[in-house]
């Protein structure tokens, strides 16, 4: 911490000065984390880096809920590795000749391919705008097969269950149940960078979600066709002209009880945000990029529109949550993925193209998340819930054309296989998220406030957790 350049003896400490001088760096021990968080994120003011002129950063979380069979998205393509894959996956194996070639760097002879329905993602990867993170999953601490067998290491709660794993991918706290997400905790720290905006830094295209829920920050929800507003507020026909003055007078009043006052304040904030956002929704995206006419395409189009209007909203930091559901393919996984991965690939490529047109490609990173990967072995019709899986990140800041983490052997004999081809993750979701949080501007010393278990995997201040972002 830098000393105050102009100390004034005896001067009263402002709240900001007090926090800056409070030795916050010492307060990172995990046992007191909850206390700190409950103190309205003690370091939020002191920790956030001041944005440079025009600096903007956004994260887009594309959540593939249901559990994407990601070992059929990123697939071994070389002869011997493909043979292992084909043997393990049996009727779920994709034909070797159908796999799209990835010109990945630094794989030391390992040849990987992409699902044939994802040519646009192949293009992004081979042009250096996309990367994969391999065999990543929820972990409390690094876990070996021996520890699994001996039950000598704590495991994520509700491993292999949908709701628990969705929650943990969004909270990054697999050893407890909480409704506060890591995106929310990050926003609690960074929100001061958007000082005057009535719109939350966290914007959801898919309703309320845990990832963007913080102690102070809640998500602002929009959808692929617009924004929800107060029904017929401001309408000037029928009996509705009465609504506006009545509602306005309700909101202008001071209430004695806390709950009424808070409710009215929230309503007031929501209406202010609506007013600001209405102009955004009606605007065109520069260059009029074409998005697929699917729910995912329209959602990412809305994200692009919002990013294009970030100045109108007054944001220099934003997160977006887009849920694409329906990946729980206990049967028909091959046919379903042919359609759904094609949609993902086309929509993500359209989004990346829009970011380039808008001029924010280097400031926006899209990343995927999912409940879990799926069993490598077939149940006869599809695949079941498993653990570690593969994810991709896209954006101008991505050190692309690379696979981060360790792509595992897909042979059934792999010691990471705890049953039916469910693999112990070799990269923790914490490391994956830490890279994203640091890129967003979370100070390294504040990383444990966002990711309480990060010190089990990574020492803040050393080299980047995984290195996929410049």
């Amino acid at each position, binding site marked *: 911490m830098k000393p105050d350049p102009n100390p004034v003896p005896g001067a009263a400490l402002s709240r900001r000065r007090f926090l800056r001088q409070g030795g916050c760096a010492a307060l990172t021990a995990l046992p007191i984390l909850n206390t700190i968080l409950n103190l309205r994120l003690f370091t939020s003011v002191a920790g956030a880096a001041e944005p440079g002129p025009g600096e903007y950063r956004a994260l887009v979380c594309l959540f593939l809920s249901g559990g994407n069979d990601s070992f059929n998205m990123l697939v071994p393509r070389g002869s011997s590795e493909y043979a292992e894959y084909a043997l393990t996956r049996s009727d779920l194996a994709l034909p070797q000749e159908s796999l799209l070639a990835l010109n990945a760097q630094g794989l030391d002879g390992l040849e990987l391919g992409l699902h044939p329905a994802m040519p646009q993602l192949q293009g992004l990867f081979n042009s250096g705008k996309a990367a994969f993170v391999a065999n990543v999953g929820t972990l409390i601490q690094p876990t070996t097969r021996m520890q699994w067998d001996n*039950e000598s290491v704590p*495991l994520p*709660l*509700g*491993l*292999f*269950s*949908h*709701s*628990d794993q969705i929650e943990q991918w969004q909270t990054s706290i697999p050893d407890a149940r909480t409704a506060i997400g890591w995106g929310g905790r990050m926003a609690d720290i960074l929100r001061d960078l958007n000082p005057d905006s009535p719109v939350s830094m966290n914007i959801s295209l898919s309703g309320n979600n845990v990832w963007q829920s913080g102690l102070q920050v809640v998500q602002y929800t929009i959808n692929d066709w617009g924004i929800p507003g107060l029904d017929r507020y401001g*309408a*000037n*026909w*029928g*009996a509705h*002209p*009465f609504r506006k003055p009545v509602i306005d007078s309700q909101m202008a009043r001071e209430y004695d009880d806390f709950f009424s006052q808070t409710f009215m304040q929230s309503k007031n904030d929501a209406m202010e945000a609506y007013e600001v956002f209405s102009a955004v929704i009606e605007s065109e995206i520069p260059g009029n990029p074409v998005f697929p006419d699917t729910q995912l395409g329209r959602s990412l189009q809305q994200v692009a529109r919002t990013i294009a209007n970030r100045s109108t909203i007054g944001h220099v930091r934003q997160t977006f949550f887009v849920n694409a559901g329906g990946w729980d393919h*206990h*049967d*028909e996984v091959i046919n379903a993925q042919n359609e759904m991965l094609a949609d993902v690939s086309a929509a993500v490529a359209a989004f990346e193209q829009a970011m380039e047109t808008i001029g924010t490609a280097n400031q926006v990173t899209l990343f995927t998340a999912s409940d879990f990967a799926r069993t490598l072995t077939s*149940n*006869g*019709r*599809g695949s*079941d*819930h*498993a653990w570690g899986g593969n994810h991709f990140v896209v954006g101008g800041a991505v050190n692309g054309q690379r696979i981060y983490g360790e792509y595992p052997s897909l042979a059934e004999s792999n010691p990471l296989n*705890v*049953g*039916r081809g*469910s693999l112990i993750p070799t990269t923790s979701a914490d490391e994956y998220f830490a890279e994203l949080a640091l890129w967003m501007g979370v100070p390294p010393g504040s990383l444990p406030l966002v990711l309480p278990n990060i010190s089990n995997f990574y020492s803040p201040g050393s080299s980047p957790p995984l290195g996929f972002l410049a």
Partner: protein
Amino acid sequence: MPASDHPTVPAAATAPKPGTQIPTNVITKPMPPTSPPADWQNFQTSRQAPADDIRQLEEFWSQFRQSVPPDSHRPILENRDLVRIWSGDNRDHIRLLPENFPAVSPDGLLLDRWGVPYHLHQMSSSDLDFRSAGPDRELFTDDDLVSTPMPMPREISALDFQPDPLPPPPDSISEPSPVDTEATVDFPTAPTDSPVLDQE
């Protein structure tokens, strides 16, 4: 339980799998009073319909998780894990499955009455869905038997309620009066492209 009532386990299901471990030295404790011992007598017999097998499994799971919290046993990746847990491999060593239960194959899988392992689907750590392949012995086909929402306990069943009949709807719904009853109000006409005014 009459053993003859149980179907013969097919050869494919009886082949022991390398590495399979069924706990043999578990310490068993009686189920606590809130969870009466599971009654398997009619399970997979002609005394009950095949769909009732699934209901029974759901009921046993419900009873079990009341006694054994979800986070106090190994995660359930597959059918075999449930057999292990129900055989006493849990924090309190509570045993739900009888020893040498005929519906458990030698390699530790709980089989349906057609000899096919049940498919388990974990919605959450406490909600587990069971699926039987049905007579065609093939999962995810039309004749599968699957979990259904648990019926309401008899004492609060909807059938027990005889709600009062609803009052008749009013002939018309009038606009609420403004606060100032003396004031005259001119209602502007709705624009033609406005949505139809629904009743509030």
